């Protein structure tokens, strides 16, 4: 029997593109209530892993289960996903998008979304076409974090926004996920997020080289995650 606290289980997960292995035999179990950093240099398989968990790409071999089920209608309803790209069409207004999310996701909190929009000075009546790239990313993040999901998958949520907004967004992420939910956040900007992480996963050329809690790293290695990362992935 699978245990109650196993939110995400990857077993032997492998994905090859042509001849190259983007992800190689990954075994990973995540429980609830954890803030996990998925760290690795560009092309190490971070996005591949997140897309596999979402069912947007299919594994070459191995399985992925979220909340006890393979990717499908149920997993989509418990995962709140922020992709590494814009997935919004240009012609909608921000308010149309909120209608869209409210229609499809029962856990979408419109009041929360409106509050966040206001604090970032984004008008709900703006058309997405008129928004800058960074603002669009903020809108997507707000929509993602306004859901009360079990698992948040955030692919590079802070890479595209200015450092001033970064702190606000991190705090937004931190204060908007419920206690039993988990966040899996991929990034290479480690210093910015280190303070909020419970666990880290290091990916190198599609292989998981480390999965430990941040406290253990500090105790055993006697250094910060950022320093360890620079050591492990030194060129």
């Amino acid at each position: 029997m699978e245990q109650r606290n196993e939110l995400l289980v990857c077993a032997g997960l492998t994905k090859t593109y042509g001849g190259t292995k983007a992800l190689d035999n990954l075994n990973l179990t995540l429980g609830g209530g954890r803030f996990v950093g998925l760290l690795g240099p560009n092309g190490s398989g971070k996005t591949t892993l997140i897309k596999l968990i979402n069912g947007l790409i299919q594994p070459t071999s191995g399985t992925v289960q979220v909340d006890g089920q393979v990717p499908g209608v149920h997993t989509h309803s418990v995962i709140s996903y922020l992709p590494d790209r814009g997935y919004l069409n240009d012609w909608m207004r921000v308010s149309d998008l909120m209608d869209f999310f409210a229609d499809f996701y029962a856990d979408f909190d419109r009041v929360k979304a409106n509050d966040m929009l206001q604090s970032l000075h984004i008008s709900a009546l703006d058309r997405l076409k008129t928004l800058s790239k960074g603002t669009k990313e903020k809108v997507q993040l707000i929509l993602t974090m306004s859901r009360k999901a079990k698992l948040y998958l955030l692919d590079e949520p802070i890479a595209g926004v200015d450092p001033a907004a970064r702190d606000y967004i991190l705090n937004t992420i931190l204060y908007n996920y419920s206690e039993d939910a988990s966040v899996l956040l991929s990034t290479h900007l480690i210093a910015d997020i280190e303070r909020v992480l419970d666990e880290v996963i290091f990916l190198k050329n599609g292989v998981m080289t480390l999965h430990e809690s941040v406290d253990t790293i500090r105790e055993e290695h006697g250094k910060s995650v950022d320093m360890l990362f620079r050591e492990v992935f030194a060129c």
Partner: protein
Amino acid sequence: MLKLLKYEWKACARVFLPLYGVVLLMSVINALMTTDSAQNFMNGIPSVILALLFVALLVAVFVVTVVILIQRFYQNLLGDEGYLMFTLPVTVAQHILSKMIVAVAVCLLSGLVALVSIAIIGADTNLIFGIGMMLNEFGKAIAADPNGLGYMIEGILLLLVSLASGVLFIYLCMALGHLAKKHRVLMSVVWYFVLSTAAQFLFTFVMFGTMSGPMETLMTALGSALNGMPQQVLLHGVLIGFCVATAIPGAICYFVTHYILKNRLNLE
């Protein structure tokens, strides 16, 4: 499902409603230009230009219908927007069917708008009177022979089924193209030509098959058996037979597309 339909309709209506509006407006303007004084104005150059514009618009409606049908499926599901659509808690079947239903509706509307706009240009009292007469006769015919209504329903059903099958065929080509690692758009086009040629070949083959050899005797036997049947029954049979014959390839396209999107989805 209803929600998907709602957003799909919104996305299409945004393009089509203004286009339909312009077409109908142009047909009204053209209709006004048919008066003698307007025809002779500036040697009739403006009226000719307007007429040409109208024809161009009709062609545009046809082209835009096909383009939007393809674009809604490709961009919304297989492009970047797929990241949003395929992470919604809905089934793949709901995605395909909602797109198909709206696409069929848009095809019907485009055809209807084209007919109405042409009717507006040709409209005079005789035509309106004529249409009234026709509808009246039609009503009488249906009242006299209930089979008429049946034929009509079967005809409409046949139209819907063939439109749906056509749309699903195009979806299948895009889904097959999506299986390629590179050049997915090009591969979709290649699949389109390969499959439509194959379908034509198959059709011809079946046709020849029924007209020669052992099939011929079977068909003759079938023909003589049907000869005894009343004409009405025969016509119903033919219409329903056509419906089924068109629905089968459509259903195959649907199931293959569904399998690909469910089990072989690989968004770039």
